[in-house]
C-alpha cells in the first residue's frame, strides 16, 4: 500500500481539502464517522458493557472456570503452531512468487489465496473427509498407529483443531509479504548473488531487512485470526473442556441461553476483544514504521 510517503499524502489531502467545498467535506466525514461509530465502535463498547453486567466478581469468576482455562490452552497451542507453520510458508511462497518468474505463477498465487474465499466450514469438512472414518488417509494414520504403537487421532482431536486453524490463516503472511517484495524488485538480490553471496546470506542481509515490518504485521494479523477461528474448528472439535477453543467456549456459553451464561460468554469474549484492540494498535504502529522506511 506504500505508494505515497507521509509528506506526499498530506500534500494530496491538503490540496483536495483546499479545493473542495467545506460542506461536502464535512458531510462525507460525518457519514464516515457515523458508519464507523455504529458499525464498529458500538459493538466493541457493547461487548464490554455486557460482560460487566453482573459486576467484576462475576466477570473474573466466569473467565477463570475449568472450561475457559482448558480452552485457552488449546487456543494458545493451536495459535503458536499455526503462526510458525504459516510464517515459514509465507516466507518461502513470497520468495518464490516475487524473485522468480515461471509458468503458472499467477495460477499458483490464486491457489494460495483459496482459503480466503472458502467458507471455514468447508475447511473443517475437508479434513473430516481426509482423516475421518470414511477418509482415504484414515488407513495411513491407522498404519502409523499400529506400527509405532501410538494413538494419534486427527479428527475431533487437537491435531484437527491445529490443522483447521492453519488452513484458514494459510495465506495471511504471504499476502503481506508479496506486495512489499514486489515493490522492492530483484536488483539487490541479483547483485548480491553475482558478488558471491549464498542464498541464506542474501536472505538475511538483503531481503529480510526489507520485509521485516511487513512480516511482523503479517504475524500479528495471523495470530489474531488464529485465536479467533470458529467455523473450521467448530466442525472438527466436539468435546468441551478438551478440544474446545475460546471461540467454541463462547459459543457453548451463549447457546446455553440463561442470562448468566450469556453474560459469561461476553466476559470470555472481552478477552478476545482486548487482544483484537491491541492488534489494531500494533498494526497501526508497524504500518507507519514500514511506510517511514
Amino acid at each position, binding site marked *: 500500500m506504500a505508494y505515497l510517503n507521509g509528506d506526499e499524502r498530506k500534500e494530496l489531502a491538503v490540496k483536495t481539502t483546499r479545493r473542495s467545498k467545506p460542506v461536502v467535506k464535512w458531510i462525507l466525514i460525518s457519514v464516515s464517522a457515523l458508519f464507523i461509530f455504529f458499525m464498529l465502535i458500538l459493538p466493541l463498547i457493547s461487548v464490554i458493557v455486557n460482560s460487566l453486567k453482573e459486576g467484576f466478581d462475576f466477570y473474573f469468576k466466569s473467565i477463570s472456570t475449568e472450561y475457559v482455562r482448558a480452552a485457552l490452552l488449546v487456543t494458545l497451542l493451536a495459535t503458536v503452531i499455526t503462526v510458525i507453520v504459516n510464517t515459514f510458508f509465507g516466507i518461502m511462497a513470497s520468495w518464490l512468487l516475487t524473485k522468480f518468474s515461471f509458468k503458472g505463477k499467477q495460477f499458483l498465487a490464486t491457489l494460495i489465496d483459496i482459503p480466503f474465499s472458502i*467458507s471455514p*466450514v*468447508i475447511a473443517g469438512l475437508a479434513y473430516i473427509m481426509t482423516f475421518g472414518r470414511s477418509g482415504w488417509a484414515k488407513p495411513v494414520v491407522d498404519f502409523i498407529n499400529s506400527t509405532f504403537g501410538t494413538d494419534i487421532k486427527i479428527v475431533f482431536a487437537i491435531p484437527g483443531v491445529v490443522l483447521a486453524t492453519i488452513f484458514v490463516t494459510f495465506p495471511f503472511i504471504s499476502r503481506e509479504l508479496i506486495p512489499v517484495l514486489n515493490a522492492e524488485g530483484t536488483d539487490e538480490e541479483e547483485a548480491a548473488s553475482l558478488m558471491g553471496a549464498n542464498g541464506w546470506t542474501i536472505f538475511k542481509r538483503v531481503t529480510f531487512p526489507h520485509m521485516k515490518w511487513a512480516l511482523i504485521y503479517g504475524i500479528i*494479523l495471523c495470530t489474531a485470526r488464529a485465536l479467533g477461528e470458529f467455523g473450521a474448528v467448530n466442525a472438527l472439535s466436539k468435546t468441551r473442556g478438551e478440544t474446545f477453543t475460546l471461540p467454541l467456549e463462547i459459543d457453548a456459553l451463549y447457546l446455553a441461553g440463561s442470562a448468566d451464561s450469556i453474560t459469561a460468554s461476553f466476559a470470555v469474549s472481552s478477552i478476545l476483544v482486548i487482544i483484537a484492540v491491541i492488534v489494531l494498535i500494533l498494526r497501526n504502529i508497524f504500518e507507519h514504521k514500514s511506510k517511514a522506511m
Partner: protein
Amino acid sequence: MSKTKSFKGGRVIPGFGLSFGITIAMLSILILIPLASVLFQSFRLSPKEFFEIVTMPNVLYAFATSIGCALIAALINCFFGVILAWVLVRYEFPGKRIMDGMIELPFCLPTAVAGITLSKMYSTKGEIGGPLYEWFGIKISYTHIGLIVALVFIGIPFVVRAIQPVLEKLDSQYEEAAYILGAKKLTTFYRVILPELKPALLTGFGLAFARGIGEYGSVIYISGNNEKEHTQVISYIIMQKLNYLEYESATAIALIMLIISFLLLLFINIVQIRQSRRVSNV
C-alpha cells in the same frame, strides 16, 4: 543446449528449487489434498443423488439467502467503502488515524464474538435494535436484515483496503483539468474518478461478496437459522449435515460452494491482472 537449461541459467538468485518444492508441498498437503478429498467423496454419489441433494428446498433457499444477502451487503459496502476511502485519503481532520485503524477491526475480531455481539445489539431488546423496534417496528436480529448487517460488518475492510491505495495514487491533475474545464464536482467524480477506481472497486466487491457467501461465525447467531423464514445460510446447512453425520450431503453442497468461490477468485484475479497491466502501461 536445451530450452529449459537456458531458462534455468537465467536465474541468478538462488533458492528457486527449494522455495518451489516447499511451497508446492505445503500447499498440497494442507490445502489442495484435503479439498480434493471433498471432490472425490462427492463423486461417490450418482449424478441423480447429487442433483436431489442440492435441489432440496431448504438447500436452495439457503443458497438464495447466502448469495442474495452477500450481494446486497457487498453493494452497501461498495457505497460506504468509496466514501470512507475518499475521506481517509483526501481529507485531513482530527481522529483520522483512529478511523483508519478501526477499519480493520472486523479482520481482527473473532467472528463468533462479532456474531453474538451484533445479535444482542440488534435484538428487540438491544441497544440499537430496541429503539428501532419501538419507534419503527423494524426487527433486525433473526431476519434477513440482521444477516445483511453482519455481512456489512465483515466485508467493509475488504472494500476500503482495495480502493485506498488506488485513490492515493490517482493523479489529481485530471481532476484539476476537469474542474478547470468547468465540470461540476459530481460530474468529475462520475466521469474522471470512478472509472479509475472501477478495477479496485470490483476487487473489493468480489472479496467481500466471496467472504459473505461462505461466512459462518458472524451470521449464525443474528440470522436465527429459521427454516420457515429462510434465514438459514449455506454454511449453517453444511454444519447441520456434518452434525447429523450426513457426510454425502455435506460434500455435495460444499462442492457447489467450492465452485462458486473458485469462480469468484478467478474473477478477482483477472481484474487484478488487468489492473496491474493498465498501471504498468501508463
